[in-house]
């Protein structure tokens, strides 16, 4: 049972434009959400996170938005750069639980 879903397997965006990656979850008890970025032949690296008590967290070109009522979060990248091309994983956590629940990933391609 996939508790974290990324319904778009891929996304292509022109350099300089906004990239919006979406993620939905089913467990309303999740209280912490993260985005990881993965380049080929490398492990995922942490990008940005958000606590469930917030609805927005911004870090430079990256902003994560959380809509708890819709059980939806999104990652905005502005402006998109070719180096942002990677697979982005959404993940969710429960306080006290040991594991993260990951989505299946969205492959972002930023076209120069």
């Amino acid at each position, binding site marked *: 049972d996939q508790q974290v879903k990324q319904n778009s397997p891929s996304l292509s965006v022109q350099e300089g434009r906004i990239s919006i990656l979406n993620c939905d979850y089913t467990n309303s008890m999740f209280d912490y959400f993260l985005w990881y970025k993965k380049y080929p032949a490398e492990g*995922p690296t942490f990008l940005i996170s958000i606590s469930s008590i917030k609805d927005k967290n911004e870090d430079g070109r990256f902003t994560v938005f959380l809509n708890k009522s819709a059980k939806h979060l999104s990652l905005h990248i502005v402006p998109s750069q070719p180096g942002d091309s990677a697979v982005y994983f959404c993940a969710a956590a429960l306080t006290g639980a*040991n*594991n*993260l629940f990951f*989505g299946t990933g969205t492959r972002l391609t930023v076209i120069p």
Partner: protein
Amino acid sequence: GAGVSQSPSNKVTEKGKDVELRCDPISGHTALYWYRQRLGQGLEFLIYFQGNSAPDKSGLPSDRFSAERTGESVSTLTIQRTQQEDSAVYLCASSHGQRNTGELFFGEGSRLTVL
């Protein structure tokens, strides 16, 4: 190096053979995780170690899978009598502290192919 190190990076084995995958976490990280990613799937939690506490084995898919960790150092994931559905990238991650704050540091993974 300073990151999480995994070996082998690639392993091809025949169905029915045993395999052992190794993970060296970041020095000082008390928590260690094993995940796997099968083709087209998300990362699937397998097992979690925290210091000298009993590991959380709730994600292990069958009794053919086992893992060990000595103290806060190296961990090995063993798959006995491998099956084709075990083919995946096995990722190890480590983190600080006793709480799951979410920021995990991943290795590059061990790609296992079972023929």
